[in-house]
């Protein structure tokens, strides 16, 4: 599992530019899926199993994209001004390194801060790729970059960039590999452009027209010093989403997930997330509406270059997902 997470997190694929991660995941799942396709928005869709009399058409969604940066101007001296892709926390940028998808690396510098009472604005930051002037700069306006930060194995816990949501992708890849028997037709959808507005999930849900939708994504925790209160702790098991900033999970889905977790003795937590949402929101309101829920993997430091998860949570999320798919779904 750790090696899987390493491979997925060390791939560079900000929103809208998911080419690399799509081909990585496709290579991993090709032997296990019944059918694989890519849709107009670049979603990678793997179908597995047939829908039996007691089965349903189920859509699982984990997003392939990660937050990143996009060059907006190359100045005369070769410094790159940029804008964010997805929810970038400026405090985490200073001094960090980035890699453009053409392979060019650089560091994020800033203009001197003369008034510390003012909060940082993105216009004060720039990327230095070692260019002397605009002409020599190997980057042009619109080129995208992601954080450059290797995966680190801390034992029980692991940290990396883009754990949001490559760890969700890892859970889906692993569940597909372990797939035994299911009454359901299951669509494993690795979605695009989640970080900029759940865009890929909405269009793939329209195409699949599922009867049940479940997203696999990370959620915040309340267990770091002076953290905002939140009843989710790293290591206490997958978080079954009840509510977030964009969705009320279908209560029948919540109850079903809890029943299955209890039956299989899988630890779990009940999640209420203030702010933030997942692909499940877009699936829920697709077409005439879809009962939807989310299995969240607790994650510290979300949207920073070092996001941390507990490997037991990842394993238990995979077990929960596999268990959910084993039997007929009674809502």
């Amino acid at each position, binding site marked *: 599992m750790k090696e899987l997470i390493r491979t997925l997190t060390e791939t560079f694929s900000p929103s809208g*530019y998911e*080419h690399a991660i799509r081909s990585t995941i496709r290579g991993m799942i090709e032997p296990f899926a019944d059918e694989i396709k890519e849709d107009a928005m670049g979603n990678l869709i793997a179908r597995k199993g047939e829908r039996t009399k007691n089965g349903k058409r189920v859509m699982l969604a984990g997003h392939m994209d990660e937050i990143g940066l996009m060059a907006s101007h190359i100045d005369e001296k070769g410094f790159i*001004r940029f*804008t964010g892709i997805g929810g970038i926390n400026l405090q985490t940028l200073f001094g960090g390194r980035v890699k453009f998808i053409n392979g060019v690396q650089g560091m994020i510098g800033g203009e001197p801060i003369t008034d510390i009472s003012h909060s940082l604005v993105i*216009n004060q930051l720039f990327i230095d790729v070692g260019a002397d002037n605009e002409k020599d700069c190997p980057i042009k*306006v*619109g080129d995208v970059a992601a954080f450059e930060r290797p995966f680190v194995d801390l034992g029980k816990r692991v940290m990396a960039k883009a754990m949001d949501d490559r760890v969700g992708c890892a859970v889906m890849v692993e569940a597909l590999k372990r797939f035994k028997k299911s009454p359901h037709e299951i669509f494993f959808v690795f979605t695009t452009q989640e970080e900029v507005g759940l865009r890929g999930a909405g*269009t793939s849900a329209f*195409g699949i027209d599922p009867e049940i939708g479940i997203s696999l994504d990370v959620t915040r925790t309340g267990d770091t010093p002076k953290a905002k209160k939140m009843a989710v702790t790293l290591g206490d098991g997958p978080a079954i989403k009840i509510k977030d900033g964009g969705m009320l999970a279908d209560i029948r889905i919540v109850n079903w997930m809890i029943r299955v977790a209890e039956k299989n003795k899988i630890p779990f937590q009940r999640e209420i997330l203030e702010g933030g949402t997942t692909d499940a929101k877009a699936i829920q309101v697709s077409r005439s509406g879809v009962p939807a829920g989310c299995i969240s993997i607790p994650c510290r430091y979300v949207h920073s270059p070092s996001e941390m998860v507990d490997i037991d949570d990842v394993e238990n999320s995979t077990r929960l997902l596999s268990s959910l798919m084993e039997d007929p779904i009674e809502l």
Partner: protein
Amino acid sequence: MAQTTSLSKKQIQIIERLSNAMAISGDEGEVRKIILDETSPYTSSHKIDSLGNLLIEIKGKGRNRVKVMLAAHMDEVGFMISTDEGDGIYRFETSGGIDLRQLPGKAVMVGKDHFPGVIGARPIHLTSAKERKETIPLSSLRIDLGPGMKSIKPGDGATFGTRFQQIGQSMMGKALDDRLGVGILIDLIKDPPPNIDLQFAFTVQEETGLRGARVAAFSFDPDLAFVIDSTPANDLPTWDGEENHNYNCRLGEGPAIYRADGASFSDPRLVRLTEETAIKEKIPYQFRQPGGGGTDAGSIHTQRSGIPSISISIPGRYAHTAAGLARISDYLNTLKLLKATLKSIPANILEQERK
């Protein structure tokens, strides 16, 4: 860099009519009528959908034709009368993105008959220095039409009263966002590339949330979409002589190709095709700076199972104010680039790698 060719007298007249028309969001009939006047000799049919989008299809010739939607929005930012306070004084609301600092002292026109009026401002003689530093809130602004305008009712639209003018190599007028895009699509209908099926959507309610394009894209269900809009050029020198790195785009440097804005990523295959076409045909172009904002592509690309889209804009200074300014060369180069790109769309474009 600007090319020497210029707009025909007829083209300028159409842009003038479009710019002078009044079509705030939700009430786009005037612009719709001008488009129909201009295009009906060239088309066999059209449809006006339930929201008011004007939809025109032109089929191409040959096999494996790609279905391409082209969108430009008919509506403009403006005002809506909310209360008749008597003696020709009216309260109003804004419609679309309006900067209140722009309003005092501006001439406006109100209602179907374009009654002239003014958004009143207290003269400098009677204001204090402190007052002059503050933005006047909407609740303190009024449109003054003078007494006797009994036919003006709450709910009537209003917009800036500016008249279009050609100034040398430039065009000045209100609502160039997006009447320039509308003009481009009219020109294209008169001389459509034959290799593809074209689906023209003159959309409504873009300025209030990309609403018309959403339903137009759903009903057209195209393979891909090009959105033609006007994007602000903030390209004047900075006050302190520092390099301006937030210009968005620049006047006179050609069509502004989007790679990303706040509402969508342009499909990388379409960006590549457009850029390669510009280079091959020696048409000047620029990339619009990525960042916020959004065009109809924002709602088109997420319709149904997804519609790969791209935005290309004509640069315009002073957007959403009483008078915008655009270069004729940028209009011509946008038209040229759009035509050349559409002509070179390969039938297998959607099978290409999207990197």
